[in-house]
């Protein structure tokens, strides 16, 4: 820990700390443009020049001291860049001298020679580092006549989302470095040099990155602006409301910038444990659904076959009386509910309470369009990653097995954080999938299994660990009941056999097994393509549980399972038991309600559908009485007898639980549209009319009840969830964790809260013993008729209701396509863009071909959420032909 003196203030910082960071700890602010705490320093802008000196040593090698016994400092002849100078023992730094003031003034003056004076019409105005530092350190006037200013192009679209102003650019390269260091999409670069130097993108489409919006935030001038927000408000007129993203399950923290009851923009809110200071472009730009003109604003009742507007009382009375009538006639089992996993915890809790305790029906589901046979609910409850796991700063002592996941498309910010862990902190990634995914680039080991072979691969790893006696014997002795019997039962499955079944080499299986078992910490990240693997989902789930248990990688931070669920509150829906066989707190139930497919195909007389759209998946049979509660007139709502208009996340408060089981609070930012009501209010009103006597005044009160009644959520009331927590911010390359907040362009630091994560059984109860079990891995080939295996994946920009409301991202939504390997394409005579026909049993889909090397030969990939391919199962054998 070198001791440094900065402006006469002594401070002790870890080895390798940069002067600019050490100064923050001494409470001295050094102005910067190109330096950013999340990026590698480059020393390009020279704004951070300071005087630096080190203790002078005499000929005898001893430090010379002055009359007062203090070391004599040998000052370097010229100022040094604080962002690239690393501290050393006894170093002295001066930032308050005339020389430093001169240097800063000169740099600002130099930057301003080619910077326009359009602050009054610049989006960055009011939160602009150049504006602020010019006021603080720049010369009051310019020595250059205004006519001699350098002019350049002012409106250069850098892709669909970002506008570049070349005049305003000060060439700090923050955007270029963000794209290559953090986003891992090096699509921005410098072109030419000197006065001609400019930012360019050569990708097709331009600025092809899912993280492009972050360059707006870190741009220290107004060069990069949002094409969505551009010129629509001044930043100081916005009111920022802390919220949580309503798209994927990462749960990025954000601020809604509101003005005139509209969302003007969305920017990230710092949370080092979830999204650091980043957002993906979907989270940032695709918010227009919340304020879309097509929103439902009034209750609707079907009269004479047509949906007509009605009052809340009419609609609620009708729903309650119909529910009561059907229950009386056919019993509670004749009613069922779909509570979508986009709704908040408060809504889901009340929804299940309505069904289980008021209506007394077990027919509850939330999984629309995804397999309902997965056992993820139990896996996560038992082995969920330990509290305190930070996926963005895992180090070399952590091995992460990522199986069947494509976080780049489904949980973009999580992909970015896993990449950061691998690239900057040395986490060992094993990325296993049936195809090449973006995350594999930084994997220590990338495994491509044959689709359907994921369970065999996991079983092979287990077998290899047992063969080489790499299991955690201490853990096995105290926490596992049946290790030897289990090992014996596996005898028929040698590593060689598993290799054959999975299509992965014996060496690769053994390598992955060793890396996972021998690591001090092990995490498994388990994605959609493994969760919903055809026929093998149970075998995959037991394979994951086995691996975690025999290696003892459970119950501690950086150990356990992260299951990547599709929606913002899928975890909450599991937590509150919106499942036919699990209740509150994921407790297994004796009674079993109807499965999702049965609910959707008319096996109940009345169906209450909240925040999801089962009819959109086809094969939906309308029950006698259908209630739809949503933001839009969805396919389900169009069939409904009563339609209840709900409020969007931005109009109300509530909590979401992210894919890491982190419960996070979001606040209301907008005035509710029309007569819309929060989901919890609607459920409570129906319940009251059924004689429940409920009396909830706010979402906060419901969360108080949850915090008291649901052990997983114990103590998680709004006050504790909103607690201001600032986590250490591990730095790339410099090795020291800074506690100073990362420079954020907007928002108050009081808005930073890390949320609360519930602990898995393995972690919270050390006395629980576990039993190992396994399921036969169904190798591929059974009933295989087609030539090709179909991989069904999800893409970030989909054709769903939410994304379709944001025009600016529409160019990024691809038309349905079929991805095929170039070898297969050549054999079939298919060129890029040619139409191909996919045949599965009686179903035929046509789409243009996208020829590339990401899917292995013999596999074709079709996105699931672009319409059309919905009906085809993952891992199906299909025929492909050229049209």
């Amino acid at each position, binding site marked *: 820990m070198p001791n440094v003196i900065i402006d006469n203030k002594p401070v002790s910082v870890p080895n390798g700390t940069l002067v600019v960071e050490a100064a923050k700890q001494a409470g001295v602010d050094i102005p910067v443009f190109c330096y950013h705490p999340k990026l590698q320093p480059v020393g390009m802008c020279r704004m951070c020049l300071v005087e630096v000196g080190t203790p002078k040593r005499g000929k005898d090698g001893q430090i010379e001291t002055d009359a007062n016994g203090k070391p004599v400092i040998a000052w370097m002849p010229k100022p040094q860049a604080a962002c690239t100078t690393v501290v050393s023992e006894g170093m002295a730094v001066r930032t308050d001298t005339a020389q430093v003031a001169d240097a800063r003034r000169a740099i600002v003056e130099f930057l301003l020679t080619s910077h326009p004076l359009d602050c009054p019409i610049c989006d960055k105005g009011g939160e602009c580092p150049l504006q602020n530092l010019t006021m603080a350190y720049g010369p009051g006037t310019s020595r250059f006549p205004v006519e001699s200013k350098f002019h350049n192009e002012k409106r250069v679209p850098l892709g669909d989302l970002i506008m570049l102003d070349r005049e305003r650019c000060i060439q700090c390269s923050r955007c*270029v470095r963000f794209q*290559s260091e953090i986003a891992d999409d*090096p*699509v*921005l*670069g*410098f*072109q*030419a*040099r000197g006065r001609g130097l400019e930012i*360019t*993108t*050569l*990708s097709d489409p331009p600025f092809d990155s899912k993280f492009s919006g972050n360059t707006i935030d870190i741009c220290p001038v107004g060069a990069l602006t949002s094409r969505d927000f551009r010129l629509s408000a001044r930043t100081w007129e916005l009111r920022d409301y802390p919220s949580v993203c309503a798209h994927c399950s990462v749960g990025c923290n954000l601020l809604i910038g509101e003005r005139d009851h509209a969302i003007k923009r969305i920017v990230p809110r710092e949370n080092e444990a979830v999204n650091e200071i980043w957002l993906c472009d979907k989270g940032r730009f695709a918010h227009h659904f919340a304020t879309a003109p097509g929103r439902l604003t009034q209750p609707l009742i079907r009269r004479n076959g047509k949906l007509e507007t009605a009052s809340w009382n009419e609609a609620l009375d009708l729903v309650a009386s119909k529910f009561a009538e059907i229950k009386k006639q056919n019993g509670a089992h004749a009613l069922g509910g779909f509570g979508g996993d986009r709704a908040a915890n408060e809504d889901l809790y009340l929804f299940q309470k309505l069904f289980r305790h008021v209506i007394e029906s077990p027919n509850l589901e939330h999984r629309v369009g995804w397999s309902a046979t997965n056992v993820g609910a139990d896996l996560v409850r038992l082995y969920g990653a330990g509290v305190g796991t930070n996926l963005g700063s895992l180090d070399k002592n952590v091995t992460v097995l990522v199986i069947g996941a494509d976080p780049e498309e489904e949980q973009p910010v999580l992909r970015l954080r896993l990449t950061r862990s691998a690239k900057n902190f040395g986490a060992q990634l094993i990325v296993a999938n049936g195809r090449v995914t973006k995350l594999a680039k930084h994997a220590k080991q990338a495994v491509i299994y044959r689709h359907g072979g994921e369970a065999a691969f996991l079983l092979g790893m287990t077998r290899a660990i047992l063969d080489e006696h790499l299991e955690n014997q201490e853990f096995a002795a105290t926490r596992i009941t049946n290790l030897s019997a289990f090992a014996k039962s596996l005898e028929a499955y040698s590593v060689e056999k598993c290799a054959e079944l999975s299509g992965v080499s014996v060496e690769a299986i053994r390598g992955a097994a060793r890396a996972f078992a021998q690591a001090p910490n092990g995490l498994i990240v388990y994605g959609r393509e493994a969760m919903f693997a055809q026929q093998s989902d149970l075998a995959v789930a037991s394979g994951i549980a086995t691996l975690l248990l025999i290696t003892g990688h459970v119950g501690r931070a950086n150990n356990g399972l992260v299951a990547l669920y599709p929606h913002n509150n899928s975890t909450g829906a599991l937590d509150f038991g919106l499942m036919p066989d699990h209740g509150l707190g994921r407790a297994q139930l004796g009674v079993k309600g109807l499965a999702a497919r049965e609910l959707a195909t008319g096996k109940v007389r009345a169906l209450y559908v909240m925040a999801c759209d089962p009819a959109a998946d086809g094969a939906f049979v309308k029950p006698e009485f259908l209630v739809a509660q949503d933001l839009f007139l969805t396919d389900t709502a169009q069939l409904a007898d009563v339609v209840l208009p709900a409020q969007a996340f931005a109009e109300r408060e509530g909590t979401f639980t992210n894919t890491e089981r982190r419960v996070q609070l979001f606040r209301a930012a907008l005035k509710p549209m029309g007569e819309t009501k929060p989901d919890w209010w609607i459920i409570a009103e129906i319940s009251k009319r059924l004689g429940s006597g409920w009396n909830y005044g706010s979402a906060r009160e419901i969360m108080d009840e949850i915090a008291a009644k649901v052990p997983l959520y114990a103590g998680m009331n709004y006050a504790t969830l909103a607690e201001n927590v600032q986590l250490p911010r591990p730095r790339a390359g410099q090795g020291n964790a800074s506690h100073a907040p990362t420079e954020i362009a907007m928002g108050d630091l009081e808005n930073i809260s890390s949320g609360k994560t519930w602990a898995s059984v393995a972690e919270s109860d050390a006395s629980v013993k576990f039993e190992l079990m396994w399921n036969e891995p169904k190798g591929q080939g059974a009933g295989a008729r087609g030539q090709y295996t179909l991989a069904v994946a999800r893409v970030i920009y989909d054709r769903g209701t939410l994304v379709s409301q944001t025009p600016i991202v529409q160019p990024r939504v691809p038309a349905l396509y079929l991805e095929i390997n170039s070898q297969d394409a050549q054999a079939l005579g298919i060129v890029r863009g040619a139409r191909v026909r996919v045949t599965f049993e009686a179903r035929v889909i046509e789409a243009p071909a996208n020829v590339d090397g990401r899917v292995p030969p013999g596999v074709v990939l079709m996105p699931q959420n672009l319409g059309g391919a919905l009906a085809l199962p993952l891992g199906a054998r299909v025929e492909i032909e050229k049209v």
Partner: protein
Amino acid sequence: MLSENAKTQIAKLMAQYPDPRSAVMPALHLAQREVGWLPDDVIQEIADLVGLAKTEINGVATFYAMYAREQPGTHTILFCTDLPCALRGADKLLEQLEHRLGCQAGHTTADGKITLKEAECLGGCDHAPVLLIDGNEHQQDMTLEKLDEMIERLKNA
């Protein structure tokens, strides 16, 4: 598109350095000698070969003046306008040359035959003004008559 031979040469260049990115500049030279200039697809090919992003290769190719990112004419004339040449009347000569070619420095004649570029010192100050044709033929002590002769020769070559 680069020839297989060029790709082999680039692989050899990469092997000469501890970091393959060091091979970018010689690879660009090699590609330019073969193709005549550096179109987008060649930039992409080099990026793929060296394992860098296209934007990074483009950054290098546009930073240095001797890489051509635009298709040049059949012949390229680099015309020195540095101090010693200027003292010997290079600026006047350049004006004349531009007039006779019918295009400004930095551009190519309408018939696509000759590209004219202003250049920094070409290392022939004792015989200023000097110019360089196609990267290998120095012309020195330039006069109007010599320019006419040269244009005639290049147009018919």
